[in-house]
């Protein structure tokens, strides 16, 4: 069975750079999501973040907020997303998958039940941006019981907390490149290398950088100082623009980004 670690590990066992695309499930339909996942795998994605839409996504900028609204108004539910994942695993999707959603989506569903059904569907981890490190046990323990990893985030303001977060981190550390919410940024000014260094002092866990990355140049630059790059809003924008016909455009974009990251 695949694991998050595989995304950062080359065939010979050495560490490799990972490209991590994000997509909101059910935007514009679960059928589109299913095809997009297979396309991302073909294009070289190493790990895929699957957004379970939430009514009030407080960590998201306008692009992903709107994707959440589109998906929810299309009638997508956590159960229909589990079913889609199970289906696409059956169609040959082997890349590791992590859900990106919010605390209440998991808690409201029942954390133990969520963990069991996510694991059964074929998901390896969960990212919950509104659960701080200090409160993570309530989620990480039931998830771990089903073999799922809870990915921790670090922000430019995390300072001395970075080391404690890194020491207990699972899967990989999600390094938030800039203050604020998700969304495309023309410039990333944070000292990413410094943040990655803090993690590496405490742990050998991979570090991937996200928030604000949209061009192959940015992705390569971020991957050069870390273990990978995560891209969300730029992909969601392509989905929003092309709707049902977005899959070839997503595939082409992911290929250019994955190549940039892999040669970083």
């Amino acid at each position, binding site marked *: 069975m695949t694991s998050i670690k595989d995304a950062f590990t080359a065939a010979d066992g050495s560490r490799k750079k990972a490209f991590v695309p994000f997509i909101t499930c059910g935007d514009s339909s679960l059928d589109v999501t299913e095809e997009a996942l297979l396309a991302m795998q073909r294009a070289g994605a190493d790990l895929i973040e699957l957004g379970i839409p939430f009514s009030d996504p407080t*960590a998201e900028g306008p692009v992903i907020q709107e994707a959440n609204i589109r998906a929810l108004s299309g009638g997508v539910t956590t159960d229909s997303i589990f079913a889609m994942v199970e289906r696409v695993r059956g169609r040959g999707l082997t890349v590791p998958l992590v859900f990106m959603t*919010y605390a209440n989506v998991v*808690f409201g569903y029942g954390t133990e039940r969520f963990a069991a059904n996510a694991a059964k569907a074929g998901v390896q981890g969960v990212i919950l941006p509104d659960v701080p490190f200090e409160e993570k046990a309530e989620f990480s323990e039931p998830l771990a019981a089903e073999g799922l990893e809870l990915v921790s985030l670090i922000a430019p303001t995390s300072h001395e907390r970075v080391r404690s977060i890194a020491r207990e981190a699972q899967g990989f550390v999600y390094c938030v490149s800039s*203050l604020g919410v998700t969304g495309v940024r023309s410039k990333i000014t944070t000292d990413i290398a410094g943040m990655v260094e803090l993690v590496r002092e405490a742990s050998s866990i991979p570090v991937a950088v996200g928030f604000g990355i949209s061009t192959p140049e940015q992705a390569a630059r971020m991957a050069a100082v870390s273990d990978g790059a995560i891209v969300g809003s730029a992909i969601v924008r392509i989905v929003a623009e092309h709707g049902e016909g977005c899959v070839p455009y997503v595939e082409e974009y992911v290929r250019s980004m994955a190549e940039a990251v892999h040669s970083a």
Partner: protein
Amino acid sequence: MNAVIELEEAYDRYKDDPTFNAELTDLLNNYANRPSLLYFAKNMTRDLGGAKVYLKREDLNHTGAHKINNALGQALLAKYMGKTRLIAETGAGQHGVATATVAALLGMECVVYMGVKDMERQALNVYRMRLLGAEVRGVSSGTGTLKDAVSEAMREWTSRIDDTHYLIGSTMGPHPFPMIVRDFQAVISREARAQILEAEGRLPDAVIACVGGGSNAMGSFYHFIPDEDVRLIGCEAAGRGIDTKETAATIETGRVGIFHGMKSYFCQDEYGQIAPVYSISAGLDYPGVGPEHAMLHDTGRAEYVGITDDEAVDAFEYLSRQEGVIPAIESAHAVAYAMKLAPTMDKDQIIIVTLSGRGDKDVAAIARYRGEDLHD
């Protein structure tokens, strides 16, 4: 997360600091018009024919609501922390006005987030905030109401924390906010308890306050919590009824969830999606409730009841005619329950109702509710 850790450290440092407290007390007394009156509502008492009804007159505070108590406390704390800019969310606009007022007084920059639907319902308060020098940013995401304004203020705070304090308006959000807001609002029950002992020589039988996020209710309850014979009653906005979908009665219709940095009761669907809520009152239509209210409910120390739009509007008109006091539509929810409860009690029993704000801002909306087209 570091922002709330920094805030908690600062609060621990200053909450018992004599200089900080002297300055805050001076502002409360000489700027905000505290202590507020505990007014014996003679006409209402006679008309209802039961318990004596006292009104804790937070409506007489500067800016017309209890919100100023917390705004002064937090803004002063922010100033001591070296912050120069305040951001806030607002529903009915009372907290936005209080924050804009305090920002003007203390020479701080101020941005208020307000749902576009609420901006329409409370146009007068939007202008009032601008008059006070604040920037009002309309929030059109989600339902365009209070919860979306909270989300947007939180998003803004994560992008700019160096010089900015998020002056949250109710006993909600991540720790330490519910505790800080409660402490700054506890002045209501500290005064009310002393005032009723002075006036009646005994404690009240019940304290009633309206609950949205729950700040005036927490402030009204806090110093009575150890007095176990005092019933504490929170009035939630039932909207068109707790058996309809158009309600904001969180404790009666919601279940435990985790949102906006707190674990408490929330109106939500089976998948944990936050439900749209409705009330005639823009200050009460929040899908959650402060976590300390959830605790008081679970332990049985406080009771929570739903008051419908109709009942609140009746109470709004009733208090205006009986006592010559126009309450905020939020506070009218508490008055409405007092109107039900007082007649069931003995004449020697006592109820304190917190009038959290004045109703000038609601006059046009109530006129519309009654079918009259009145321009703000």
